[in-house]
């Protein structure tokens, strides 16, 4: 399908000729996506959009959506646009790139929230918030990602969730151009009372609009939102030292940045629970291990010594200190403590010590060296090194990404994930980083109780054999998850599995009825079905 001249002209009339394109080169830049090669197309390119538009205001977005309704054209908006879920899922979709809507409209210091447009990234909001003693939750995908996209359209956990919550928890009032083209202002904004609350006074539609997993660009366009901010007990501007890529930040006196390790997985899970109970921690995350238990201790040295590169990996792995770190760092995660007062940090340290005594855990000695602490602090506070995910083999695919209680994840998910990845790593088509290549959000929601494990498969998207290896692993991982009563994650979405397989997978979700409700929501809010097919819902209502 190619847009008719009439439709193109109607869209051009809205945004102006400089802000619309149907040039194939331009459009292919939008079709190109991460892990697209795992799809059935076997190409780096997702379906090419019919046109790309750069709207500059809510009014323009509304006019575009109304035009889509008039002509029965699908549209899909993105903010920063990382991932296959940002691109059109099928042919016949126009792409809205929201990068011209890039303002922080307000930071309300007293009431601790900010109002942002779609192209504001976490790193920008964080920098401005820190100037007034506040901070923003940054999602696991990193500070280059849009705040609004995290709040409205995707899952939204991150390393700081234990203190600052999940993106769904931080979403306050929002401005939503619904699939019909009507504008809905939710929560307190809907009653003219400002941005401070997502639930009222005014329409409380957070669950409808984003639910748990987000709208995925398939349910209209979110054009503004307010996001909750949290206290920041650090400096107004984090000082950054070091030569690229070995950037680091000195630890303020009221901060600590630890890597903690545990003798067994049971004690590891116990430590999570005890940390929740003690209400300590500013950031709690299993970050470095995403590079694999066999590799991470050596790989992170390129962030400590700027003369090192991936080429030095084998040499580094042979060093006794790295060998020791590998052993010490098994079953580990990172914990950043930030005290709002000297007494607070002393309490947190004392509480942590007790937890370590009770669980048999310890602070990993190499990671407690000043250079490692400085790197850990900067990495986790600013989430500024997230392309580390791609650093080993060219790219990665996250699998087994499940939320649950700590004991469920370590005793039920982890063995399955290790067995599946280890078996495929031995074949040589994906990187042999070690069976435990699991990143983990120690807390998926504010305060803890829910956490996440995600098993990383590193592969080379340039090497067709490696892509085939990754695909075979993903299929196996999804099967292993289903056999244990879990539904598939990104591995299913990237592979674009058949409708039947997807339905089967979703039947294993903790609450499959959610997908049925989402279908009802979709039908009610998008009567002309102009939303992109990424929106998560079952095909038919079955409950």
């Amino acid at each position, binding site marked *: 399908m190619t847009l008719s001249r009439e439709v193109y002209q109607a869209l051009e009339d809205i945004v102006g000729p400089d802000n619309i394109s149907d*040039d194939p080169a331009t459009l292919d830049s939008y079709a190109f996506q991460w892990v697209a090669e795992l799809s059935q197309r076997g190409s780096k390119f997702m379906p090419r959009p019919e046109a790309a538009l750069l709207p500059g205001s809510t009014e323009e977005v509304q006019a575009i959506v109304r035009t889509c309704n008039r002509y029965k054209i699908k549209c899909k908006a993105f903010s920063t646009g*990382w991932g296959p879920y940002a691109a059109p899922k099928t042919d016949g979709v126009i792409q809205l790139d929201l990068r011209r809507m890039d303002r922080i409209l307000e930071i309300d210091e007293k009431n601790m929230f900010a109002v942002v447009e779609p192209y504001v990234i976490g790193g920008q909001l964080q920098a401005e918030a820190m100037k007034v003693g506040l901070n923003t939750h940054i999602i696991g995908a990193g500070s280059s990602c849009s705040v609004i996209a995290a709040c409205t359209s995707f899952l939204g956990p991150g390393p700081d969730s234990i203190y600052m919550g999940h993106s769904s928890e931080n979403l306050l009032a929002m401005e939503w151009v619904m699939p019909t083209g009507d504008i809905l202002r939710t929560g307190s904004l809907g009653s003219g009372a400002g941005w401070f609350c997502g639930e009222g006074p005014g329409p409380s539609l957070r669950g409808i609009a984003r639910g748990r997993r987000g709208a995925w660009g398939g349910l209209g366009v979110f054009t503004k939102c307010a996001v909750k901010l949290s206290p920041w007990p650090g400096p107004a501007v984090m000082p950054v030292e070091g030569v690229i890529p070995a950037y680091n930040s000195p630890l303020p006196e009221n901060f600590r940045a630890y890597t903690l390790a545990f003798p067994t997985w049971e004690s590891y899970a116990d430590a999570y629970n005890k940390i929740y109970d003690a209400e300590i921690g500013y950031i709690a995350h299993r970050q470095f291990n995403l590079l694999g238990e066999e*590799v991470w201790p050596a790989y992170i040295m390129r962030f400590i010594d700027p003369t090192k*590169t991936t080429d030095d990996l084998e040499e580094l792995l042979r060093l006794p200190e790295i060998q020791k770190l590998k052993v010490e760092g098994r079953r580990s995660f990172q914990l950043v403590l930030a005290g709002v007062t000297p007494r607070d940090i002393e309490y947190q340290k004392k509480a942590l010590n007790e937890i370590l005594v009770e669980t048999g855990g310890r602070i990993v000695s190499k990671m407690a060296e000043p250079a490692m602490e400085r790197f850990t602090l900067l990495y986790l506070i600013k989430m500024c090194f*997230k392309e580390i995910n791609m650093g080993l083999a*060219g790219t990665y695919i996250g699998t087994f990404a499940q939320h649950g209680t700590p004991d469920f994840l370590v005793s039920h998910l982890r063995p399955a994930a290790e067995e599946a990845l280890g078996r495929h790593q031995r074949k040589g088509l994906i990187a042999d980083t070690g069976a435990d290549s699991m990143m983990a959000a120690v807390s998926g929601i504010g305060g803890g109780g829910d956490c996440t494990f995600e098993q990383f498969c590193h592969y080379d998207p340039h090497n067709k054999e490696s892509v085939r290896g990754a695909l075979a692993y993903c299929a196996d991982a999804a099967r292993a998850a289903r056999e244990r009563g879990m539904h598939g994650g990104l591995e299913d979405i990237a592979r674009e599995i058949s409708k039947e397989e997807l339905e089967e997978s979703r039947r294993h979700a903790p609450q499959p009825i959610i997908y049925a409700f989402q279908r009802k929501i979709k039908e009610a809010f998008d009567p002309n079905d102009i939303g992109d097919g990424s929106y998560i819902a079952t095909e038919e209502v079955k409950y």
Partner: protein
Amino acid sequence: MALEDYRAVMERCARGSFCKWIPLAHIKSWRFAKGCPSIEYGGFHSYSATGRLAVSLSLLEGRINYTDELLKIAYKCQVCGACDVSCKVCRDVMETLEVIRALRVKLVEDGQLLPEHMYVIENLRKEDNMMMKSKAERGKWAEGLDVKDLTKESAEVVFHAGCHISFDEDQWKLARAAVNLLKNAGIDVGIMGKDEACCGGKAYDMGYRGEFTKYAQNNIEAWNRAGVKIVVTSCSDGYFAFNRLYPQLGSRFEVLHTVEFIHRLIKKGKIKFSKTIPMRVTYHDPCHLGRMGEPYIPWEGIEKKIRGQIIVHEPSKPIMRGGNGIYKQPREVLRSIPGLELIEMERVKEYSWCCGAGGGVKEAYPDFSLWTAKERLEEAKATGAEAIVSACPWCERNFIDTSNGNGERMKIYDIIELVQQAI
């Protein structure tokens, strides 16, 4: 390397868009977080480095053909290298800037040219300069200057004025001051005068590899004939060409930017300041002196895999991340001037915002070029500085042109002007 040789880089791009921002660790504000002028001005994703990688792959795969828009995507970029720096914070196998350059080379080879570039290159071929001027005027800047003519004599040091300084009368003083400083310090220095030729660096950035190679070889031969051991230039474009590109053609000269030479002379006590300059200034790192100012390190080897699919090189491959450019010397020179206070902008060193003049943009897209410079002047003003100082005639001219058009009050200097004032 040809575009096809970079297919792996294209396919390994994860579209993380780090290339659009300064390194995330360094973001200090909403206003100055962006790193790439091209995407900020061009708007569509195709104007980012990751977008250009996608377009290049699409071209190689035969999904698209040449269009006017594709030419704009390829050429509406200063090739400033900010994308490359941000990408390489985490990624050792990516060479985004090289892909952008290779795309231009392919376009030139396929006859996909911009008329504005063709005029400049035609003039280069006839007149040996990028300034649309006659080569007969080239040596005028040195009239009356008592300095060796290296077409007839020999010297240890050649001072290469470069196209811009040679033909921009306002900038003649920069070259004259540089030569006088060198001479007064007892350096055996000479110039090529009217026979000096373009470094070829700008042609290289515009995709005209043949022209670059011709001028590089000619310059290397001329300097060898004159017994030159050290090449000194006040032009950052020239510095990049001599320091990074010429060694790939066998050049073995020591290459110094004037600011490095001045820094050495200050350290040795051969330059002493006697005057105070009571002024708050900020320093603009030229892309070709800063992030692209790292020296060439030869490497021949292969990519191989360890542990199944982890990508490494045999032998270890040097990575140019931009961290070892010429940053310390200009700052120390400025700080050594009595009364001068140096205030840093938010985007500095390897993640500096470009002045806008490079990559053939000033020639083909002057509005974009001036917009980019205006952004930098806004950043400079935000520091509270009275003046912006640079170490490249292209940067200085673009700032002046922008300033003139906007009624800016900020003073604009080349670093050598302040050094000369303070002596």
